[in-house]
């Protein structure tokens, strides 16, 4: 092949690429019979499994309403844009959804950091953002302490779980004293520990010990021995499953048989692998929902989801579904597809029955709803009880 030919092929390739690419430029054209909702999800990248679960939940909710005839005769359509699990791509995706696809509201992203990259764009374009899963309190309240007008969420915020577990310890477990073992390298853990302590004291309990560890620590026995000496009724460990697994294991080895409490960071099959099924007995943690819950609403959702996607819905799928229900409810009450009216309606969400409970948005756009407490028994997650705020 001569140089000339090679160059020509090169130029042709560029031409083809540009042709392919511009062919896809049109964006999604809204039909008169459709309401377009954007889905800014982590479809690829580090937390793609979370993004896909959430998107699946939303799609299921939309499918159900569409089969019932949609909203005011219009079908709901989810336009998904991938944000590659990265904040700048999330900003890119939401800009595309709002300005190219002309969606009336945007669902997602999953991670708080990705949502934070999009809030300003939602505000600039006056389009509501509803995240199903971002638990960081700053998502709906800005640094200046003002509520972000256009941002809503369908899940409870991190500190809420601290209250839930404190109430659970004081009321259900009748604990009088508690120790707290906190992961000092995570904001999530520190925030939860503070709230737990405050609520537990408010319930008449006493915090007898507070110890700290760091992510990736391996040996926890020194701190555990210190805690053992104070003989607490319960130990609260708000952290992620990796360290929790080791802590639980070592605590049981030291003969500490009191109930161990945790939060949604515990929710992983890996926890059982690390700690061992027997050690985890008498362990409880809070989560958004439990597929084991006998509530008929939850059982119906689990069955429908299984039928559609052939897997048990995780907490993210349930929250995605709830976000779908919230936007459907808001569209119905707004009786309009204007983003400003949808925003008003979302802010006034009250007593909406969703899968994970009955949901009312407070003045900070955070839902007030129940959390599920899950008990670990022989390596299985059992639904223990629902705790209302």
């Amino acid at each position, binding site marked *: 092949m001569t140089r*000339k030919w*090679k*160059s*020509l*092929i*090169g*130029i042709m*390739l*560029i031409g083809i*690429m540009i042709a*392919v*690419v*511009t062919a*896809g*430029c049109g*964006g*999604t054209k809204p039909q008169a019979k459709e309401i377009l909702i954007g889905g800014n*999800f982590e*479809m*690829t*990248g*580090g937390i793609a499994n979370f993004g896909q679960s959430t998107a699946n939940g939303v799609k299921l909710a939309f499918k159900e309403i569409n089969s019932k005839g949609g909203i005011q005769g219009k079908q709901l359509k989810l*336009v*998904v*844009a*991938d944000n590659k*699990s*990265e*904040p*700048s791509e999330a*900003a*890119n*995706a939401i*800009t*595309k959804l*709002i*300005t*190219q*696809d002309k969606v009336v509201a945007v669902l997602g992203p999953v991670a*708080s*950091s990705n949502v*934070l*990259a999009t*809030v*300003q764009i939602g505000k600039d*374009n006056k389009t509501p953002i509803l995240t199903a899963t971002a638990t*960081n309190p*700053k998502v709906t309240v*800005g*640094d200046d302490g003002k509520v972000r007008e256009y941002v809503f969420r369908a899940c409870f915020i991190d500190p809420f779980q601290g209250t839930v577990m404190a109430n659970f310890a004081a009321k259900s477990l009748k604990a009088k004293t508690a120790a707290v073992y906190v992961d000092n*390298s*995570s*904001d999530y853990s520190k925030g939860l520990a503070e709230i737990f302590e405050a609520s537990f004291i408010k319930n008449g309990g006493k915090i007898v010990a507070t110890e700290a560890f760091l992510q990736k620590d391996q040996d926890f026995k020194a701190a555990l021995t210190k805690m053992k000496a104070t003989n607490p009724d319960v130990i609260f460990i708000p952290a992620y499953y990796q360290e929790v697994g080791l802590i639980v294991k070592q605590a049981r080895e030291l003969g500490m048989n009191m109930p161990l409490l945790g939060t949604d960071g515990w929710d992983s099959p890996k926890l059982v692998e690390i700690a061992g099924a027997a050690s985890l007995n008498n362990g409880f943690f809070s989560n958004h929902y439990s597929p084991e819950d006998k509530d008929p609403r939850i059982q119906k959702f689990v069955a429908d989801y299984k039928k559609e996607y052939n897997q048990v819905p995780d907490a993210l799928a349930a929250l995605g579904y709830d976000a779908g229900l919230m936007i459907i409810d808001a569209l119905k009450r707004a009786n309009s597809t204007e983003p400003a009216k949808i925003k008003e309606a979302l802010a006034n969400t009250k007593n909406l029955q969703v899968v994970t409970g009955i949901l009312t948005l407070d003045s900070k756009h955070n839902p007030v709803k129940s959390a599920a407490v899950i008990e670990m028994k022989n390596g299985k997650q059992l639904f223990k009880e629902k705790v209302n705020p």
Partner: protein
Amino acid sequence: MNAVRKRDLLSLLGCVALYAVIQGLIMVDILGPFWQLNIVLICINIILAVSLNLINGFTGQFSIGHAGFMAVGAYLGAVMTVKLHLPFIVAIIAAAAAAGLLGFIIGLPTLRLSGDYLAIATLGLGEIIRITILNISYVGGASGFMGIPRYTTFTWAFFLMILTIFVIKNLINSSHGRACISVRENEIAAEAMGVDTTRYKVMAFTIGAAFAGIAGSLFSHYFYIAHPASFTFMRSFDILTMVVLGGLGSITGSITGALLLTFISAVLASYPEWRMVIYSLMLIVLMLYRPQGLLGNHEISLAIFKRLMGGVKSGNAQNK
């Protein structure tokens, strides 16, 4: 005025004209916010690709830690404007200086390595920078640096991009640049000819890092947030892909690569399931047929078109 100066002036005029056209389209709202965002992103990516090309393409030192320098620029720039309330221009200069300084400090020991070893060392350095940032709670730690104002506009991005291209192009055409190229072609021969190879390697590395810092500060001041997840080694590979796709050792190649990949990525956002498939297929096809990159080490100029049309063989259409 000699011919070279005249040509520079002409291309500068061309750039101003291009700026005027795009700015005009933005003003009359033909280019919506989505394309505005992607044009700014293209400018930032061109800065990154061209500066990496100086290290990888022209000096021949295989570095894949560019995202690390970008992160330094992004965070330092944000600290300057948010915490210290300094003007944006100061933030950009500080970001460039800090990233450059870091490049210099890191370059001295690592550039003694070559080939695979250097690649691994720079990859590690990029990660070290990211993990360090992850653990500094002053800049937000794992939850990212929030509340950065959007100072970056198309004007800022465009003219800093032009500055980058201008500086690097002139550097390459200078005696320093020739020395860098000689290091790439044959390090031993270069040394035998009296070229201080370490000095030029470190110089290229420092300048490349400084421009990555500029790109970083533009980046964080456009997306409201600087987050460690934006500066993983995947970002380094993205930049590297642009450089290799366009052709190592071609500035216009890097520009084409950055333009093309950013554009493709933006358009395919509607098809998340297919994005990675199409993206990688394109790269495979391209690498099969043009292993030297779209432009090899040539530069786009009228000479190439002349050669294609008239078949005037000039051997090598080098236009350096």
